[in-house]
């Protein structure tokens, strides 16, 4: 079984919700990423979303834009990121890892090469922010051949007919974007999120993750009540930004924010 499916099955059996942290690979420097991934797992991560830095992160707010710039200052490439996944797998064979990023690095590597290399590296799924289902057929085919999940975004602006299409094309889980905006946006409205998730749940059995606007234990717990997974990115990336040159402090800060959210979600 794909690690993502296994993870959600285990959580369901335990009556728990998934906590999914996002960090950008190569931020603040490439040789720290694998350590940070382990830190995230030790402090409560169920799945890791690993960002592939891109020069033009159109859907991201300032926090993740800067993370991309820090990673790109070290020329962190998609190939490097897959290398990090491989290294992570040497000591962790259980925690699913999903790549999140923009299409162009994948496009330039070539879909087939990417899917094969991703599988060989121990990756479990892919979320391409700027690739809606309509444009994804070819890539989806190669991912499927390699038992890699293709995760799609769903937004408050997504009409019912599109939502149905997305549910049919997606696998692993669906990522519901809680607010209209870029990553790191303002606070989300839990009642509004719940209403939209109820609407989506009528169309699919896939687990529903919620991201954008989750920044602490309180928001994580509130979202965990109405969803299957809580996705947190900018709040963690900010811990890296603020302590760029102090790896130990980064680990402490990531760990304490993760634990705060984990405890609040499990309470």
């Amino acid at each position, binding site marked *: 079984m794909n690690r993502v499916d296994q993870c959600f099955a285990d959580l369901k059996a335990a009556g728990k919700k998934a906590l999914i942290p996002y960090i950008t690979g190569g931020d603040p420097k490439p040789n720290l990423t694998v350590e940070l991934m382990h830190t995230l797992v030790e402090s409560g991560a169920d799945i890791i979303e690993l960002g592939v830095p891109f020069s033009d992160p*159109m859907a991201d707010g*300032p926090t993740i834009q800067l993370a991309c710039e820090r990673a790109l200052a070290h020329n962190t490439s998609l190939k490097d990121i897959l290398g990090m996944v491989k290294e992570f797998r040497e000591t962790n064979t259980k925690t699913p890892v999903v790549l999140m990023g923009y299409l162009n690095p994948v496009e330039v590597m070539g879909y087939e090469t990417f899917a094969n290399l991703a599988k060989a590296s121990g990756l479990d799924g892919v979320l391409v922010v700027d690739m809606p289902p309509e*444009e994804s057929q070819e890539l989806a085919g190669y991912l499927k051949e390699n038992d890699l999940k293709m995760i799609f*975004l769903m937004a408050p602006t997504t009409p019912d007919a599109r939502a149905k299409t997305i549910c049919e094309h997606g696998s692993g889980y669906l990522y519901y*974007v809680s607010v209209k905006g870029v990553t790191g946006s303002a606070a989300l409205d839990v009642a509004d999120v719940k209403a939209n998730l109820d609407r989506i749940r009528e169309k699919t059995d896939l687990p529903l993750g919620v991201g954008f606007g989750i920044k602490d234990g309180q928001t994580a717990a509130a979202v965990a009540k109405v969803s299957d997974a809580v996705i947190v990115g900018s709040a963690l990336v900010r811990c890296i930004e603020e302590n760029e040159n102090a790896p130990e402090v980064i680990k402490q800060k990531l760990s304490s924010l993760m634990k705060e959210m984990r405890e609040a979600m499990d309470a």
Partner: protein
Amino acid sequence: MSIDNTNVDLKAVTELPTETGHFGPYGGRFVSETLMAALDDLTELYERLSKDPAFQAEYDKDLAHYVGRPSPLYFAERLTEKAGGAKIYLKREDLNHTGAHKVNNTIGQALLAKYTGKPKVIAETGAGQHGVATATVAARLGLQCTVFMGKTDVERQKLNVYRMRLLGAEVVPVTSGTATLKDAMNEAMRHWVTNVDDTFYIIGTAAGPHPYPKLVRDFQSIIGRETKRQSMELEGRLPDAVVACVGGGSNAIGMFYPFIEDEAVAMYGVEAGGHGLDGDDHAAPLCKGKPGVLHGNRTYLMEDENGQIMGTHSVSAGLDYPGVGPEHAYLKDIGRVNYVAATDDEALEAFHTLTEIEGIMPALESSHAVAYGMKLAAGMDKDQIVVINLSGRGDKDIHTVASLDGIEI
């Protein structure tokens, strides 16, 4: 991703894009999910209105009475003499209200915005011409206008920045990335995704997610349609070649599209050669780039081996862009249009030449077309005809040219 360019059915080419916005492998719609519904709505609205005679009549009326169309097709006698070959005509888009071709499109998109009922418009701009054209139509229709402009461009196009502010627009300097046109477009997209309910995004070039490349082309095609008619009136035949500069490619596609089926008319798109195509300091993705995905469409890009978008260089802010409209990518692959480049120096020389011998000061963007057009004409017979699209006037560039000439104004 190779295209068979033998026996291309040119009529079929004019029927592109497909319903999903594709020109062969190019174009499409590569944006995050939040924008998909807005793009679907816009596609539907445009499909409906483009067939609505009342909408067309309103657009045509604005072009005639507000923009001042048709723009002249002017025989540049002394430029012709200087080049020493084919007759050179200039399509005078520089004489449009606001001084460039950009207004043909902003008038059209602002009308669309009016039909959506959204009270706010946003735009990205490089040289500031599209920003000015957007601010202008926003002022006229009473729409709130925000223009995103790279900080580098804000500095080198001060005159246009002040023009936009006089017109009531807010100009937001963008500091991320390379602080030029591509970053302005990123920021405009980010703003749009956050404010999609009450904001209409007026994209200035024939790029971006479907339906933008199509609707910008359709609005700009007035350039080529007039040129055909005027050439018949003045010369009794179509030109042998048409030439236009290509950044994102809106003035070029406007000139080229109506000529696609006229196989005898050669077409040349002139990219920004910067310091030369041998190095990396240029903005010529069709000449030197590779296909990729940026800003909502698949097209030729200036990118590195890892798929990161490269910084570009051009003396003209309006051509300083690492991508290009997807229809140009397709026209290149099928071999219908020749894509070439003119360097900064060649463009500057053309700027001075046209100013000195014809009394017409071209925009630095358009100067690239003038430079190549003269070279092309020189190698042609005297009874042949070349039309150069003079997409904008050069007033906005006086500071840039002066400082390159070592003069402080």
